[in-house]
């Protein structure tokens, strides 16, 4: 309601004066209102996300005793100790192999599964529900189950193969650390596939069927349609799923911890299990924080590359 009507009669002006008008306080409220609404999230983020991360940065540059007392800053001593440790290079390599293998393979398989589940067939709903199971089960339980399956002495895989006569004596499925790591990666892929599948499936369902109809009329084959229609249109869902997966998988702890604890001699450790050991088995919280910061910086770099790449291409393409 405006009060600046110059030709208004005196009565009307009087009324207008009495009517509520956006006073200074109301204007202020309007300005402040959005901030009030987002304040709870900002406060929660500050308490539960920013504070622990600032604390980790602080600890990574501090001398921390085994009893947990912080004895002042020691610059980058924790970082230099970590980087000099012979185990670190191995652990970093493992982390990269783990992240790339799990993310790439689960993305490919998840994408293929999504294509299958996007078709109309009897029992599609049940199939979709079954795909969620690995996702819905606790990772520790998943990893324990896998451990139980591949165990040489009482594992179900050996029992099954012996029952159907494929092998006569139990096979040691984990004779080397590399073999164990491969099983861990397999378990990681198994639990990651549902997430990719559902991200891609949501993208697939938003594609208008008329594109495919037009392509069919023009004589396009299955793969032409897949690469020229489906892939470009689900690219945004796939990209989001991949970036989230990189971060989740990189930071994943339960599978490796439950199956091998990073043993033997750090051969199956990733940065997260390594820093857990440093902090809670070796009592080196400063060095553990330094490893945590290194992981954070690596992830930040990956996420920045992705964000810059996608924002440069514009929102439409995202």
């Amino acid at each position: 309601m405006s009060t600046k009507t110059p030709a208004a009669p005196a009565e009307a002006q009087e009324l207008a004066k009495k009517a509520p008008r956006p006073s200074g306080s109301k204007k202020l409220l309007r300005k402040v209102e959005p901030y009030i609404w987002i304040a709870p999230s900002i406060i929660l983020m500050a308490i539960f996300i920013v504070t622990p991360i600032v604390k980790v940065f602080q600890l990574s540059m501090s001398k921390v005793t085994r009893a947990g007392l912080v004895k002042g800053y020691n610059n980058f001593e924790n970082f230099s100790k970590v980087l000099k440790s012979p185990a670190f290079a191995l652990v970093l390599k493992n982390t990269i192999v783990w992240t790339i293998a799990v993310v790439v393979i689960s993305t490919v398989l998840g994408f293929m599964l999504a294509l299958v589940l996007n078709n109309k067939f009897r029992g599609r709903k049940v199939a979709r529900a079954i795909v969620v199971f690995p996702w819905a089960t606790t990772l520790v339980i998943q990893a324990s189950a896998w451990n139980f399956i591949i165990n040489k002495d009482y594992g179900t895989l050996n029992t099954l193969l012996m029952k159907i006569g494929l092998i006569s004596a139990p096979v040691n499925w984990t004779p080397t650390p590399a073999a164990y790591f491969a099983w861990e990666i397999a378990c990681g892929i198994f639990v990651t596939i549902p997430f990719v599948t559902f991200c891609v499936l949501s993208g697939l369902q938003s594609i208008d069927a008329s594109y495919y109809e037009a392509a069919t009329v023009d004589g396009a084959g299955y793969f032409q349609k897949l690469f020229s229609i489906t892939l470009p249109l689900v690219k945004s869902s796939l990209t989001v799923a991949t970036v989230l997966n990189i971060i989740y998988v990189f930071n994943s702890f339960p599978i490796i911890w439950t199956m091998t604890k990073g043993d033997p001699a750090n051969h199956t450790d990733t940065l997260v299990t390594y820093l857990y050991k440093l902090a809670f088995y070796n009592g080196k919280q400063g060095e553990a924080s330094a490893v945590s910061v290194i992981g954070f910086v690596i992830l930040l770099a990956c996420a920045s590359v992705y964000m810059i790449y996608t924002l440069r291409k514009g929102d439409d393409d995202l």
Partner: protein
Amino acid sequence: MKKFLAALLALVMVLSLAACGGDKGGDTTPPPADSGNTDTQTPPADAGSGDKTAIKVIAAEYGQNTKQWWADFVTEFNGSHDDIDLTVEVVSWNDIYTVVNTRVANNDAPDILNIDVFADYVADDLLLPIQDCVSDETYAKFYDAFLEQSNIDGTIWAIPDLASARAMYYNKGILDAAGVEVPTTWDELKAACEKIKAYDSSIYPWGIDMTTDEGQAAFAYYIWNNGSDFTDASGNWTLNADANVEAIEYAIGLVKDGYTNSDPANETRYALQDLFGAGKLAMMIGPNSIPTYIADNYAKANTPAEEQIDYAFAAIPTNGSNASVSAGVMDRFMVFDNEDSEEKIEAIKEFFDFFYEDTRYSDWVLMEGFLPATSAGGEIVAKADESMAPWVDIVGSCKFYPTAKAEWADVKQGVIDVEQQALLGGSVKELLDTLQATIAG
């Protein structure tokens, strides 16, 4: 501008997801079902009452009976001490170090702590000499050898609350069937393994645990029974001593020859105990609690008597004529220096007198099947349970890890790493040389 916006968005994304990832890991980490539970045993009516002297205790949860035992203890103690308000927080082993460290960092250290390690707290000047906090009568009850384990620079910083000892368990049925005598030396052990393997190749003759959980125990069994040690007589680290190299090479040799469980770097003692109980493992070194563990498993699985194994224990085999050495593990009580008044110190003394009262103490030890650290407790326990009697003898003479030395935590992880590297083909001599150089500088 876009780049800046992109970087900002990326930062926010990583911040939030990094926090999520961390949480996920932390929540699901500790394997046992009862982990993460802390339980404060305190009568609600008395809590925090002004005139009373409050004593806060943090105690480790040894098993499923620990909480109830402490709850009863607190009720009894507070009932008979009108001027003291005792609270006991029972914390699982998975969390106790984090809980204590957090409390210490926040200036809220407990008055009394029941845990295994103590040297780190001494290094930070957090403890009181234990003799100042225990009455002379109670202090006189402990085995001297046990008190010595908590000696740093001539001061005793902690008193033992209980102990456990290790011996070699063997499956009588398998040894008889394979025509093997119980081995007492390393040569006999190797010969026994060979015969058992020849008798039934699906049975593992010998169990070895070189995992992150307890690999240091394997290191101790072999070096101690080769007449060697972690340190020399004056307390200097001697990790790369020739006898240590020989001992670990012998152990690794058993694995390489195929006489042991297939994956010593990943199969914990509990996995070995399961294999032993199932009759798939002929011999292993383990604690005095194994009979309870196996019996519980049989009860849970309703294992029929004919499928249960017939087993016994004997001294750990040694190299040649060296004396057999049992490995002891000991936990402790220590008192934090919270600038306590004399009244409080007296209250703490009352607590210890009450705890170490002979019958109550033997009840504490028997509660989870451990061994006593006092001679009077030993006599009572030996009388109460015949199967415990030989263990009470063993525990009085066994060796302990050098936990009083500040470098122990590094040595412990270091020897486990050496074992695991050696399993992967590394040279024991070179690995121990490197470890010695890292630890001793």
